[in-house]
Structure formats: C-alpha cells, structure tokens
C-alpha cells in the first residue's frame, strides 16, 4: 500500500461489469461495480458466472458466435470487448461458474469511468461476486471516490471480517449485507459456508453504525429456515436500517439448483408474512421486493 495519494500502479482487480446508472444498489442513482469471484457458492445465486475466476481452459472459445474469444500469446484467454455481442453463450458453456468477460482494471481505470458518471450519481456501490476480496483495491478506490464528493457503499455477503481489518470501513459509507442463513446446517447447505462470520459482521456493523441495509432471500416452502433467519435478523437490526425481504426468483439460477430450490418464484403473499414477522419483532423498516 502506498502511504499517501499515489496509486500502487500494479494493483488490479477483476471487474465483471459496471452499470453507470443503477437505482437498485443503494439509495439514489449509483454507479454499480461488480467484481468477479466469490468465496461462497450459494445455490440460488442468479449470476453464477461471477463466482470463480477464469481458468483459461478455452471451453468457451468455440461457443462464441462473434469470435470475440481467443488465446493470447501468454496462454491466457483474451476477450475482445468490442467484438462481443453479449449473447452469453460463453458463460453458459463455462464448466467453472466463471466468465471470460472480465477486465482486470486498475483503480485509475475504474475511476475514469466513475468520473464520467459522477455528475449524475449520489455515489458508487461495489458488489460482485464479492468485492471485499479486493479489500486493498477498495480502500484506494473509495479514498479517491470520496474526494469527488460521492458516497461509497459495499454490497457484501459478509465473508470478510470487517472487525479484524476496519480500514475499508473508515473510507466507506455503509455496507449492504446479505444474511441468507443462520443455522449452521442450513448455511452449509445453502452457501457452502458456516454462518459464523456473517453473523459476527452483522453485529459489528450494527455496533459501528455502518449497516446500510440488510437482505434475506425467502425461499418457497422453506418455512422453518425462512422463519429462523428472519427472526434472528429482525430481533437484532430493529430500526437501524431497512430490511429487504427478497422473493426467490429462479431466473439465472443454475438448472440443477432450480430443481432443488424451486422452479417458481416465491409468492408475494408468502414473502409478506415474513415482512410482517420482521416488523412485529421490531424491524420496522422491513419490506418485500
């Protein structure tokens, strides 16, 4: 890490997508940056191509109708963004839940995109994948974005221990946290990870006043698991932040997991029951989306 103001020019992070104007990634209009790679493997992930990094196996090369994928001299897969027609054939073909359409960007490169949208936005939101995997990168990025007078929010699955390294929180305006499961067995099944660190983060972020928003996905027919998670979360967050009760939607979910979790979306009425429950437990800002 450079000490003051200068960028470590070597530092780059894999960016899957930048949405210049987003109205669903935090308050106001925001530029949303989606980083590639996630330590969790949630069964209901609806953009599973962001989970792993490209292995340069080449399985996708032949699938590309626009001939936008090839091997570079160093043996790494090369994606020609200008030729790409965004048909998604490559990510459907990928055996690793990865995507070849990733740019390894420097802080400065990302900033030049953010400067363009700066006049129209309240701030930026970093998401993923899981953006906190690139903690050092975020610290540099947020430091610069705050100089533009724009707020910085993190969208996180809670896999990064914010208490152990609080530097990123010091330059970030808040965290939008997913709490998907609280029971160890269910968490292991759903996320392939234990819930301990996520729940520790929930308490820590509440304690330091950096919890911007909390989200729980409600699955169809999983009464016990849904109730357990909502009860736990609602009792803790109270009025501290909005609690989004998200209806499960099968769109984008890997086929094998759709069979497991449901091929239909969660009914609105069913989800409303959990919003009611959350509100009755003190989470007054609970609502269904």
């Amino acid at each position, binding site marked *: 890490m450079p000490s003051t103001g200068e960028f470590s020019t070597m530092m780059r992070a894999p960016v899957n997508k930048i949405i210049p104007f987003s*109205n669903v990634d935090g308050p106001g209009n925001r530029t949303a940056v989606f980083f590639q790679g996630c330590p969790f493997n949630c069964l209901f992930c609806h953009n599973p191509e962001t989970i792993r990094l490209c292995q340069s196996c080449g399985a996708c090369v032949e699938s590309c109708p626009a001939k936008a994928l090839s091997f570079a001299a160093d043996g790494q897969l090369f994606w020609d963004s200008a030729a790409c027609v965004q048909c998604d054939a490559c990510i459907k073909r990928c055996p690793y839940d990865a995507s070849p359409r990733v740019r390894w960007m420097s802080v400065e490169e990302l900033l030049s995109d953010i400067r363009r949208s700066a006049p129209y936005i309240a701030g930026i939101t970093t998401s993923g994948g899981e953006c906190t995997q690139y903690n050092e990168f975020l610290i540099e990025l947020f430091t610069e974005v705050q100089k533009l007078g724009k707020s910085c929010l993190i969208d996180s699955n809670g896999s990064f221990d914010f208490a152990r390294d609080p530097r990123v929180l010091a330059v970030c305006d808040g965290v939008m946290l997913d709490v998907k499961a609280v029971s160890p067995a269910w968490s292991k099944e759903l996320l392939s990870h234990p819930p301990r660190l996520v729940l520790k983060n929930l308490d820590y972020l509440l304690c330091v006043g950096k919890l911007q928003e909390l989200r729980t996905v409600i699955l169809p027919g999983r009464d016990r698991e849904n109730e357990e998670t909502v009860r736990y979360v609602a009792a803790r967050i109270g009025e501290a932040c909005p609690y989004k009760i998200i209806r499960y939607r099968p769109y984008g979910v890997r086929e094998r997991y759709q069979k497991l979790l449901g091929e239909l979306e969660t009914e609105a009425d069913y989800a409303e029951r959990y919003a009611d429950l959350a509100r009755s437990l003190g989470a007054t800002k609970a609502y269904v989306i």
Partner: protein
Amino acid sequence: MSDALNIIQDPTLTYHQQLLALARLGESTDHMLRYSDAYYEAKKRGALCDLNEGAMPYRPRYICPDYELLFRKGCQFLGLEPPKDLLEAVNALEIFYCHVPSITSFPVYLGDLDRLLEPFVLKEDRAYAKKVLGLFLRNIDRVQTDSFVHADIGPEDSVTARLLLELTEEMQLAIPNLTLRYDPEKTGEDFALACVKCMLKTAKPSFANHRMFCKEWGERYAIASCYNGLSIGGGGYTLPRLRLYECALGATSVEDFLSRELPRHIDLQLEYMDKRVKFIVEESSFFKTSFLVTEGFVKRENFTGMFGVVGLAECCNHLLGITDKKKGFGMNEKATALGLRIMDAIEARVAAHEAPYCEAYGHRYRLHAQVGIDSDGMDDSPGTRIPIGVEPTMLEQLEVNEKFHPYFPTGTGDIFKFEETWLKTPDAILAIIQGALENGLRYFSGYLENNDVVRVTGYLVKKSEIEKLRAKKQSLNNVTVFGMGAQDGGHALDRRVQHYDESAGQ
C-alpha cells in the same frame, strides 16, 4: 376521387378535423407566394421541408400571448374584465384560448398556469380550488383538442402547481403538454420529486433548463408546442427544416458538404423564411388587425423565425460511410465530432444572416432541433437525436445530448423510457436530470413504458386512442394520427427502456 371528397368521406375525422383539413386544402390552391427554382428543386428532393405550413400564411406559426396582461387589464375585444376570483380567471383563460391562432389553429402556449392562478387559488379552500382546476383541465382537453397545446409551471413551488400535478396524475390526459422550468436554486427538492413522479406516470411535465433559457430569452420565456423556447408576448413566425441526410446525399465528401452543399441548403431555407416572414407581416392581416396585436398581448418585434434541422445522425453516418447505425453517430467519436462541426457551420451561417422583423433578437433567426414528423420514417432522426433502436447507455446518450442541446434556443429535447422500478426511486431520476441540466442538457422528458399516455417524439398521445384510429374510429385529439404514423414509420414508441437486471441480492 377529389381531395375534398376524401376529407368529407373519411370516417376517422371528426367534424372539426374535416374543417381544418378543408381549410388547408383551400389554402394550398393559391401560389402567389413564390420561391426560387432552386428552393422547389431542393424541396422535391426532400432536402428541405416546410412542415406543410401552407402556401399562404395567415398567422404566425406559434403565438405566446402575455396572459398576465389579460389578468391585469382584461380584453376589450373579447369583453373580459380583469378576473377577481378563480372562477373568473379560468373562465377568462378558456375564452381567450379559443381566439389564439397557430399553425394548428389551437393555442400552443397556455401560460405559466401556476404563476397566473396562484393568487386566486390561495383565496379559496384547497378542495374547491382543485375542483375548479380539474374542470379547467377537462375543458382544455376537450376543447383544445390538440397535443401541441402546452402549459408551463415552476421554477418555484406553489399550491397551484401541486394541484395541477395531482390532477394530471388523476386525470391521465394527453392534453395539455406540460413543462417544469427547473432551476436547482429555485425549484425545491420536494417539488422536483413530485414532478418526477408525475412525469413517470403521465409522461409530463418535462424538465426545461431554466437557467439556459433565461440566458437566451430573459425571464419571460415560454415553452410552447412540443418544446419550443419563445418569448412571452411574442412567438415564432415559421419553422421549416433542413433534412440533413438528404442535404448530404449530393456531397462528394465531408469537405464538399461543409463548403458547398450545406451552405447552399441553409441559404435556400433562409430564403423561404425571409419571404414567409415578410408575407405574414406585410400582407396578411394578423399583425395589423388582430386584437392580440392591437391590445398588446403580443408584439411583432418579439417574434422570430425558427430555423429547424433534422437527421443530423443520418447525415454524419452517410458522410463518413458508416452503414451500421450501431457504430455510428452517438456511439462513434468521429461521427459526433463531425456533428459538432456541422452544427457550428449552421449556427454561424444563420447568425450571419440579417432576418426581417426579428428586432428583439438582433435581427436573427434561432435554431430549432425539430422532433420529426411521421413521414420522416427512419431516414431522418429527430433533430440531433441518436436513432431509435441503437441508443447507447443512458449515460452515453446524455453526454451526446449535452454537446448538442446548447445550439437550440428555440428548442430541442430527448426522451427516456423507464421500466417500473424507477417509480420507487424518483430521487435517482432527479439526480440524473440535475446532472444533465448542469452539463448543458436543455430539455428532459421521460415516461414509464407501460403508460397509456406516452410521449411520441415531442408531443403526447394515448396508446388507447391510436388503437381507436386503427379500428377506423374517430379520436378527438388531432395529434393521435401523427402518433400512429410515428409509431408505424419511425418506431417512435420503441425507444430503449432504462431497465436494470438486478444482480445483487440473491
């Protein structure tokens, strides 16, 4: 079959629409007002277009009366005293509107309704004022049956403006068109957000860059018709258009276009405007005898001519040999840079021309980015807009717009279509509008994709009314037929939807 018989037998025309069509037909039989052979040749080629303004103009195209004068002094000719309460005020306006001519025969400017009516509204209780204003809006919709009828509100918040927004949302009418004059220092956040919500649900109001218009026109400017900037107490004599794509077809290169074909066509359009303006002022009776002039509701010296352009995108693409629109104007720096060169050239040549009877503007005409007509099809996009169907991201589209909007004091604008989730985040849209206006955008319009009332190219229609015409039934609104044509020929309702594939949260 004769043209007159066609009109008389057309089952989709109301009586009033037949009357107007027959009047236009009658006007077209006299060709005393003549232009040069070169003008007619260019018109035949489609390089120049007179928007069917008619062969013998008997009134200026757009008239923006000073309604404050009506409220201050009354109107002798119409036998109206200055109004003393809200009922008298709206009644005076309703009567007056019926006597304001225009190219469409309907008043294209209804006044700054909030400023005019606020003193009267404040004297009444809110429910009563709302009832009266609701009837007033209903009268406008059923009597001034043409979507180019336009009212303005803002920049400051007022009870009247809030009531008009509430009623606009409740009544879901295509008429009148509505503009908020937006100034970040004068328009409060809460009022602006109420306007955004109303705009999403009803396609109005649009947001006008108040500071930009004030710099060019002073405080007393009107937004009339689609989005025309003009002086209150004045108006616009005429609005012909250069169809830039067709202007470029005879050029052998970019340089040939800029040095020969473009100036030639600009001069032909100026010839048309000069002759027409002189005819309206010197020959027709309007400026000599109309009570609007003799009682001072408009002053001749406050009028100007609107020099229109369309098809800049297609012009640039053609000159650069770009055949794939997706890689052309709006997405291509070279094409955009050429667009700026062309606009600089048009601006300079029009500014060098001494225009007759435009005293208030240094004897000059002012540029206008015309919104297109149904017969343009896909050949010429409106004004300097990026063609429908190949719009880039909203950010990129705004960046291009911001470069071109400053050229057009008599109006330009762009339209953005949003999906439903934006209704929950009006603050996000307001931030976009604020940023864009700050960066030089002149005029912003938006609507939700599933609305019945939609903005076609600059005017409003109801989709349900278009369906009536398709079923060979009549539509009271004269403009519905243009909406149908623009939908069929120009895919004007198929613009890119601002949606967001929600990636976070699950």
